[in-house]
């Protein structure tokens, strides 16, 4: 169907067509998504393959110096006349070996061998529970008098330092490959008869044409330490039995494979049912929380933006004041207001009606959190869309009026497409934000009410507040890690697909 066919349809047909094409587009989008993943991995493997090929061919073509640098880092560079560079490589190799011997190798081995993880019967290292090491009875006091318990390794330490060692090793591997490349490159330059660049000159390059590398080094290091390391650590945790009964340093935990994932999806009835119910509610919540705010925010902005409304600035300020009050303050006040014996219910009972269990009955609580969230969220949408409304060229409306369009038509043809186009990415981030909207739920209901068929959760709990409860209250760290991974996957896939399907990403050049 081309544009002409589309333009000839009635409004109803157009809406139907759009809805139809949205849903028929979903399988394609999902397929594209997986194709993209496929392409990514293909590219990755090609890259790795090429890397190995280059690694091998460099060795074959290399002279004695290049070959030597495969074992003694920096040897090639030094033989080819780059003393400073070669020394740097050599130092990094020595430093890495020292690091591994004194620190890293210990944790690489312990992750499996010394029994900290393997199974309950072979626990050896760092266990103080059953029989503390160096256990001795004091003749007077009759209890242990060892004071070196804090020097023992525990599961957390081993796992964390294992991840650290792996990261350091990966970094070292990159340096090692660079070393062979650099040795070969200097060999070629020497073969040409010219002299390779000196150390100082090369260092100067980092302030000049390779300045981006210098700039990026701190952010990348920060990213590795504060983002990649904890994420890997958490992912590993999902495959252990790190729960209340296995808390280091008093107790150890060990690998259990995919048991936790199985628990969440099918093998434990209670956990899988809780997960199912919470997942469904999370999506319902995210949908309503996002679109109620969006729609009512726009309506409010339109109302204020209307020509014949006086004191526009005043009204806008009034509504922004609700956003200026810290969110948690508003939420805690709402919680007090809506309590079973709170002021709102006092008024209701005072009128002779029976009290409403706003926060203590499942369905009521769910509606309450959505409505209260509107109070908190609408001002933001109003602010953003008022800005947009003021930016829509007035001549569009003028020509529409000349063509005889009424206010509703102007809204559906000009205003809404314009706003929707600009705000789709915002909607996606809000949706993802709402999936992880901790504050509203935590401060308002705390996840409650909590009937007995929920595992460590309640009827208004989102995945993310459930995760919080699992870590803080019941210390099921392994389960929480699984939930964390699932939330990440849902948010990542969901937002990638919707963003790729949105007009804003398809036609970046045009409006509507």
């Amino acid at each position, binding site marked *: 169907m081309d544009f002409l066919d589309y333009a000839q349809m009635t409004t109803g047909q157009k809406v139907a067509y759009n809805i139809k094409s949205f849903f028929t587009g979903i399988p394609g989008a999902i397929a594209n998504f997986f194709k993209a993943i496929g392409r990514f991995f293909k590219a990755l493997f090609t890259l790795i393959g090429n890397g190995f090929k280059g690694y091998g061919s460099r060795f074959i073509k290399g002279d004695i110096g290049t070959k030597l640098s495969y074992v003694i880092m920096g040897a090639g560079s030094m033989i080819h006349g780059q003393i400073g560079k070669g020394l740097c490589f050599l130092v990094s190799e020595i430093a890495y070996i020292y690091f591994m011997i004194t620190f890293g190798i210990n944790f690489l081995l312990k992750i499996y061998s010394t029994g900290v993880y393997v199974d309950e019967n072979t626990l050896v290292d760092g266990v103080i529970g059953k029989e503390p090491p160096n256990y001795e009875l004091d003749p007077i006091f*009759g209890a*242990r008098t060892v004071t070196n318990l804090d020097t023992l390794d525990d599961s957390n330490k081993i796992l964390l330092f294992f991840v650290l060692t792996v990261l350091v090793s990966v970094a070292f591997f990159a340096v090692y490959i660079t070393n062979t490349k650099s040795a070969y490159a200097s060999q070629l330059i020497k073969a040409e008869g010219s002299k390779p660049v000196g150390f100082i000159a090369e260092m100067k390059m980092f302030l000049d044409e390779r300045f981006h590398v210098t700039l990026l080094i701190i952010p990348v290091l920060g990213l590795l330490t504060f983002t990649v390391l904890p994420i890997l650590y958490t992912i590993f945790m999902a495959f252990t039995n790190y729960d209340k009964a296995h808390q280091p340093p008093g107790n150890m935990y060990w690998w259990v494979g995919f048991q936790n994932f199985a628990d969440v999806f099918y093998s434990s009835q209670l956990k899988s049912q809780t997960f199912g119910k919470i997942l469904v509610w999370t999506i319902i919540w995210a949908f309503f929380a996002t679109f109620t705010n969006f729609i009512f925010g726009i309506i409010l902005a339109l109302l204020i933006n209307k020509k014949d409304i006086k004191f526009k600035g005043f009204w806008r300020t009034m509504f922004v004041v609700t956003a200026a009050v810290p969110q948690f303050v508003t939420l805690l006040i709402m919680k007090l207001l809506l*309590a079973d014996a709170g002021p709102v219910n006092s008024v209701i009972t005072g009128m002779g009606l029976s009290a409403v269990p706003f926060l203590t009955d499942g369905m009521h609580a769910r509606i309450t959190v959505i409505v209260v969230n509107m109070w908190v969220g609408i001002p933001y949408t109003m602010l953003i869309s008022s800005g947009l409304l003021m930016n829509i060229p007035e001549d569009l409306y003028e020509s529409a009026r000349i063509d005889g369009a009424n206010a509703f038509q102007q809204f559906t043809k000009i205003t809404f497409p314009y706003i929707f186009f600009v705000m789709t990415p915002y909607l996606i981030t809000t949706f993802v934000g709402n999936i992880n909207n901790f504050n509203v739920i935590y401060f308002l209901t705390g996840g409650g*009410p909590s009937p007995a068929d929920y595992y460590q959760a309640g009827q208004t709990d989102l995945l993310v507040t459930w995760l919080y409860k699992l870590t803080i209250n019941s210390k099921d760290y392994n389960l929480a890690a699984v939930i964390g991974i699932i939330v990440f996957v849902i948010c990542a896939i969901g937002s990638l697909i919707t963003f790729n399907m949105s007009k804003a990403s398809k036609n970046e050049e045009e409006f509507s």
Partner: protein
Amino acid sequence: MVTKTKRVLAVILTGMMAATALAGCTQTTKTESGSGTGTASTASTADGGESKSEGDGGSGSTVDVYSDEMTANIKAKMKEEAAANGGTIELKVWCASADLKFEKTLIEEFKELYKSDDGSYEFKIRSSGAIGEPDAGGKIVESPKDGADVFNFADDQLSTLVEAKAIAPVIELFNSNVKANNTKETVDACTIDGTAYAFPKTSDNGYFLYYDKRVFKDDSAVASLDDMIKTAKDAGKNVYFNLGNAWYNAAFYFSAGVTIKYENGKQTTTFNTDEGLNAAKAMCHVAENAGAGFTGSDGGSGDNTAVEKGFNDGTLAAAVIGTWEGPAIKKAIGEENVGAAKLPTALIGDKQVQLESFGGYKLIGVNQFTKFPVTSQALAYYLGNTQSQLKRYAERGLIPTSNEALSDTKVQADPAKKAIEDQTPFSHGQGSSVSGKYWSTNVGGFGGEIVTKKGAFTDDQLKDSLAKIQEQIDT
């Protein structure tokens, strides 16, 4: 040479002490102190079950911790521990912020008492009120190595601490004294599977009944929960009993005969039985009056707020709550109108049964990972001894746990204390009843649901929920 003789003497003394302490036992399987493999305190596990064998046989035959002899021994140990850590004994103490000033004076006394004779060590004890009794256990479990050496905590955290092996068992010297000096219920609350893990401090952390004497004329008016609700309803007021909280609603399960036991690291319950069903039905029966004579949940505002507000605006005539709300209630309705009593009876099955409760104690624990095990225990013992408890009562109004301190006349005159004393025979130690998981499971949520729906449940629905609860809690 001198120290060696002292030690030999001490071994003999301890041996004698242990022998006399166990004289009342039916079994004397205890290994000699100093040569055994386990801590001496595990000996009582041989007796099995709940019954504490130390009872009468133990009292009066303990070693005086504060004798010159023992003080010298402890000081020698402190010197040893200090030497291993650079000559300074650095301890961190956590207590409630309101108690901080008072606890500091006790710590000063302790420093004076165990001052080094030859200046070979010095104390550096930092006390902090930042982490109070409700949070201390959790913080210690989170990262014991960063935690305080000596910390005050509420007894509901004991099983969590023991599970995580983050709290040190009380060493034998102090253990026998703690057992002899404090009430049996208190000692029970510090003990899990026969091993004592903490030093008792105060006994007023449990719940009982506060009531308005203008509505309930005398003690007989507060004897049965059903009657109370009726009386309150006629007066246009309510009785507050938070069924939406696992700590309070356990009263119904205990009284119905549900087993809630934590033994050998295993939690066993019998929620999914006829007794459990009876308890749930009893709650439904009471909850029918919700809103008219009965308030069964804090409605999202927290117990303390709900109770204070209720007494202030006159909607409450009685509340099941603890001493911490005493001052607020007195302020709201006038001291002369405040009555306190043990919990009433409730209709369970077809009989009126006395409601049982969780006892509530505040305890002092020693971190398993402390660098100064003996010094820390000595400090914990000092903070919890009879003299300190009496001072604490005088300064802070906290009811003691020591027999001697309790018999002190001033303490006996306290009305809340009488209610606690009456309730104590019907109370259960939290450490020996529940593991930490009990609190985060929806036992409270289920009670809250009963109240919200005003008890409109079929037996099958109740059974289903009870089965799910048991599945979640049992290990």
